[in-house]
């Protein structure tokens, strides 16, 4: 039981004790209503004044609320989603944004490629071919774009070592993302490849030509189109007839 007094009678002289002994002195009645008799008076309310600091607290909070709504209210506009932006900037078209292809490529690489090819691009001997200091990477970019779009399966040779595994297709990445990641692996000094960047337009072109392809490429198929991997390919010394106009 939860009363604080133990005896069925409240101690005499206690404040707010509301009993009159003679009315409830019948013993049977007391036993029947023991719980009810020992409980204290029904709750009531005092009228202590509100503490002064509370007035100040309410004022400060209301003031803060006003400032917050003015600052981050989004101008009460249904199409204003960024609380820090101003509406003028929202409608101004500042033209295409300059994208740092290396930074974007590094991010795309770490999210998609690094699991197999390694964060430092060294791959895994005999299982996943390297992208750092690799002849394939410094070859014709169209070959790389094809591999990225539709994947690659079967035996290939990278830097003279044989690999036989399957690479997933990354056709879901955008032209810009593919261009960025290829630019990154071809030009970033940390990976040791010394080639030239890949443009999103080239990716779009290859995608338009080969985007319908669903099954992964194989080494011989690519060799048929682009010739053997040289590791030092550029549009000027390109040996395959199909890519000569690039």
């Amino acid at each position: 039981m939860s009363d604080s007094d133990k005896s069925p009678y409240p101690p005499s002289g206690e404040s707010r004790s509301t009993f009159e002994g003679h009315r409830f002195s019948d013993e049977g009645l007391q036993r029947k209503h023991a719980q009810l008799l020992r409980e204290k008076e029904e709750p009531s309310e005092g009228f202590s004044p509100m503490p002064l600091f509370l007035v100040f607290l309410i004022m400060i909070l209301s003031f803060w609320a006003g400032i917050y709504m003015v600052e981050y209210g989004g101008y009460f506009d249904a199409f204003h989603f960024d609380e820090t932006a101003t509406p003028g900037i929202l409608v101004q078209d500042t033209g295409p944004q300059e994208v740092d292809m290396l930074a974007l490529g590094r991010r795309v690489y770490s999210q998609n490629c690094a699991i197999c090819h390694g964060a430092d691009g060294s791959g895994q001997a005999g299982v996943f071919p390297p992208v750092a200091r690799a002849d394939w990477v410094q070859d014709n970019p169209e070959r790389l774009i094809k591999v990225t779009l539709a994947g690659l399966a079967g035996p290939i040779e990278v830097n003279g070592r044989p690999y036989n595994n399957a690479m997933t297709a990354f056709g879901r990445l955008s032209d810009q993302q593919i261009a960025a990641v290829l630019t990154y692996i071809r030009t970033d000094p940390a990976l040791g490849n010394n080639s030239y960047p890949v443009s999103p337009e080239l990716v779009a072109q290859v995608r338009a030509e080969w985007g319908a392809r669903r099954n992964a490429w194989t080494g011989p198929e690519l060799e048929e189109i682009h010739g053997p991997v040289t590791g030092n390919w550029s549009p000027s010394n390109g040996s395959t007839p199909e890519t000569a106009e690039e």
Partner: protein
Amino acid sequence: MSVPASIATAIDPRTESPEAIRVRLSEVDTSMKVPGVFFMISALFWLMAGTVFALIAAIKFHNVDFLGDSEAFTFGRVRSAHLNAMIYGWGTNVIFAVAPWIMGRLCRTRIRFTNILVIGGVFWNIGVTIGIFGILAGDKIGVEWLEMPAYATPLLAIAFACTGVWVVLLFRWRESGHVYVSQWYFLAAFFWLPWLYTIAQIMLVFEPARGVVQSLTNWWFAHNVLGLWLTPIALGAAYYLIPKVLGRPIYSYYLSVIGFWSLALFYNWAGVHHLIGGPIPAWLISAGTVASVMMVIPVIVVAINHHMTVVGLHKEGWASPTIRFVVFGAINYTAVSLLGSAMALRSVNEVTHFTHFTVGHAHHGVYSFFTMIMFGAVYYMMPRLLNREWPSAMLISLHWWATAVGVTLMVVVLSLGGWIQGLRLNAISDDGTVVYQFMEVMEYLNPYMVMRSLTGVLITIGHVAFFINFFWMLCQRPDPRTPARPTLLTNEA
């Protein structure tokens, strides 16, 4: 008759002598006996069922294969079954037991048509049972806090109407002059929940709103079930029990007024803070953040009011099971609400959102605050309904220590783990790559998840103690010759 009472009677004829009031209280207790016992038995079985679901869900976090073969007990279902069993099974049943009783006592009028109350309660429990089985069978709706399938919910709405209407009507039939603060909270809550529930059902299940309005409605509803249903009931119960058990008036009527109206004004805006970072117009989220922070006002006000009522009577309070549970709940109301206001700030929310921090916060609110106050209320109510005493002080003590320590540890573990989880998930290095892979973060959290399950076991022990004590009390035959002594927790009190 004491002198102040005579003066009061002279001024307001409805002011009755203390003896007359006690006779009325006796009528209230007698009228509430059958529905009270019925709702308590239902609530206890749901509490145990919800605890089992909770343990299964918790174990799955560190032992993924646990019950992995069972389709019904996959995480997505068992977690929803836990939530719904606790909110609609345990929480609402215990409210149906406690709220009419306190409302009746404060209105000085017996509960009428208790048969309809019980019938409504039977259908409520049938509805919850159908809903939980529907969730486990895979029919759940993908709306948090409203997962019960659509074939269970109309029954719930009707059952609630049959049950809740008597609390509202009790107020209509009141024979008390002054309206006490608990009555405001109860009356408001019994209007708020039907309003929330029907609007949410219509806008999300039967005639779904389009686009982001759905998620806005979802979180408006889910946060308000806590804020406008569980919270006012628990606060009303605390406002009744603290002065009642300690025999001292509530500190300040003025603070009660501010606390109630600021809660009513601010709480129903606050749910939008669950959508910070989402594709919601910025002003709506800002309004939700502001309302959440403004909740500091009712929280501080209620904290002062309760604290000033208890202060100096801690020894008596510690001896009383009711006050122990209720004061624990009241303290946690302050803590959880201030934390909640902080979590609604955009910068904090970026870390805590989608982490275990939020889970800890939810248990802090629904368990440490609401459920603990309800335990306290049950410890006070049952002896009066049954004219019996709690058979075992040891079991009450076990219940208190296991649940209080268990839930506090759980909140600490989940908050700490969740905070680190949020920091690691957000960590970005200078070149824009993530510092921690997702799996690394999950593996890091494993010890925290084991700890969480252990605290869950502790809470389960407390629930079992409560369960045994309750049915022991129901089954015992008290000897009419021995004087009834209250079951207190310390001998020297």
